[in-house]
């Protein structure tokens, strides 16, 4: 009994929504207040790492082609990389703020994986549209962690980074396997 792809995407969207809210709250109150409780420092890096771990069973059990498996595995790896470096920064094992660039790299690789593994144009189907939208969102938003590394206290960079994950959540919630609006199944994909 395996869940449909759309259901898995919605569950991950929920994780990204939570991630976006954590980051937005941190951006609003600032790092000093956010770090007053030790557990809060680990909140979003821990969640990012957990999402990466949870992506592995998706990559192994729920993908239908090698290309999809590789894409999901790359998202798993990059999410874990981003989570790990931020956990190490939170713990004090890493000290340089430039480690934030690892998040930028993760977003670039993830975005590229979206764009490379979608072989159809934007308007081919809802799924194709969402792959392109998700991919380009990540590629463009990879700029935010660069800004955070240069100006860690800037509200604009921090809020932009948080909003990226809220947008990712919305796009993932929009995913449907088949839907009446812009969710047809192509004859190439087996529709009669």
């Amino acid at each position, binding site marked *: *009994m395996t*869940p*449909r792809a759309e*259901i898995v995407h*919605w*569950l991950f*969207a*929920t994780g990204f*929504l*939570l991630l976006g*809210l*954590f980051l*937005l*709250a941190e951006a*609003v*109150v600032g790092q*000093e*207040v*956010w770090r*007053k*409780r030790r557990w*809060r420092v680990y*909140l979003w890096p821990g969640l990012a790492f957990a999402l990466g771990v949870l992506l592995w069973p998706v990559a192994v059990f729920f993908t239908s082609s090698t290309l999809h498996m590789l894409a999901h595995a790359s998202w798993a790896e990059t999410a874990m990389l981003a989570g790990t470096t931020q956990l190490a920064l939170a713990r004090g094992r890493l000290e340089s703020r430039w480690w934030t660039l690892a998040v930028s790299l993760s977003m670039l690789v993830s975005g590229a994986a979206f764009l490379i593994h979608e072989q159809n144009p934007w308007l081919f189907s809802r799924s194709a549209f969402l792959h392109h939208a998700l991919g380009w969102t990540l590629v463009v938003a990879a700029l935010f962690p660069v800004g955070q590394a240069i100006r860690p206290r800037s509200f604009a960079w921090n809020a932009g980074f948080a909003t990226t994950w809220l947008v990712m959540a919305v796009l993932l*919630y929009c995913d449907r396997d088949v839907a009446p609006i812009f969710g047809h199944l192509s004859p190439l994909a087996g529709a009669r």
Partner: protein
Amino acid sequence: MDTELVGTLERRIARRPLRVVVIEALGPLTMLAGVIWAIAQPYRLVFLHPEGKGFYDWLAQPPLLVVAVGVFFAAAIAPGIVEDLRGERRP
């Protein structure tokens, strides 16, 4: 309406800094988004159309997931942040 009560409310709202208002609003706004989504697309709620639905359909009902995230944030995360913000303002 009692003018004294209105005056007290106005003073309390005026005293709350913007950051506290935003943090307190994040959870309820998320819940509201989920409720609006449920009203706009009721077919995404399984309990309204339970015929032929399986375990995973009951588990992942997107508008309810959004409401759940809002409830979690409002109940588990926001109170601590607000408390710390108020603590920061005290001399």
